[in-house]
């Protein structure tokens, strides 16, 4: 498949993640939509790394893109662990995961 199809797929996935962040109020679902956006970026990185290999001819060209995907996964895992801890703490205080309760960080 040409690269344009993968770009269109990743862009669509990213936009669905944006829709979720904008229209949902449950903090956990907002987090999951951020994961969707990260995965759209990952998909695009892999597609471009593959294209780079095919164009450059060098069998190891474009390997950096896949390494970046690995690091993005690492950062996402760390982010999820801290973010879910924050959500659990917030739920313990307010007994809700509505992000509109988060418009004040005091108390």
């Amino acid at each position, binding site marked *: 498949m*040409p690269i344009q199809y993968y770009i269109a797929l990743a862009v669509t996935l990213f936009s669905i993640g944006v829709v979720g962040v904008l229209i949902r109020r449950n903090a956990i*679902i907002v987090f999951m939509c951020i994961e969707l956006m990260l995965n759209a970026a990952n998909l695009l990185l892999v597609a471009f790394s593959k294209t780079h290999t095919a164009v450059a001819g060098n069998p190891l060209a474009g390997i950096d893109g896949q390494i970046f995907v690995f*690091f993005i996964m690492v950062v996402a895992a760390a982010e999820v662990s801290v973010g879910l801890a924050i959500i659990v703490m917030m739920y313990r205080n307010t007994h809700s995961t509505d992000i509109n309760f988060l418009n004040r960080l005091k108390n």
Partner: protein
Amino acid sequence: MGIAAILFWILSVLTIFSAIMVVVSKNPVHSVLWLIATFFAISGHYIMMNAQFLAIVNIIVYAGAIMVLFLFVIMLMNLNSNTEPRKNIWAKLIGVISAGMLLWILISVVRTFSDQIKGHPQIATFNTGNIGLIKNLGQVLFTQYALPFEITSVLFLSAMIGAVVIGKKN
């Protein structure tokens, strides 16, 4: 249409449909399950692009570890569709419209430059290229990217300590 194209379309439809279901599901547990389906479809795309290591890591780390964490937190909080907070219909409409305009702009950019990148090689072909194998990725990761890899361990340690400190009852 070859087998690669058919698989691409099936996986793409599965990815988009599961992602939409993540957003529209009322029950957060269903959202998590649909997100797992999305990750499996994306792993299928990685395998099509000969990125086998990333496909397996995507399944193990995302669909395995992170989603279990999400599910565990949701079950800990006893969330279901009854406790789902309601949102104003106008706010939803405005959110969908603005994200749709973002999609429109990005798709327009791709279409504008589409004729310039035409003629480049097809990327979803089986058994071409071996940069996705763990042998080659590991060699680069432990030589050229050894320092970022070690810094990653510090990041994980600090995230773990941070999660424990935040979650600790005071």
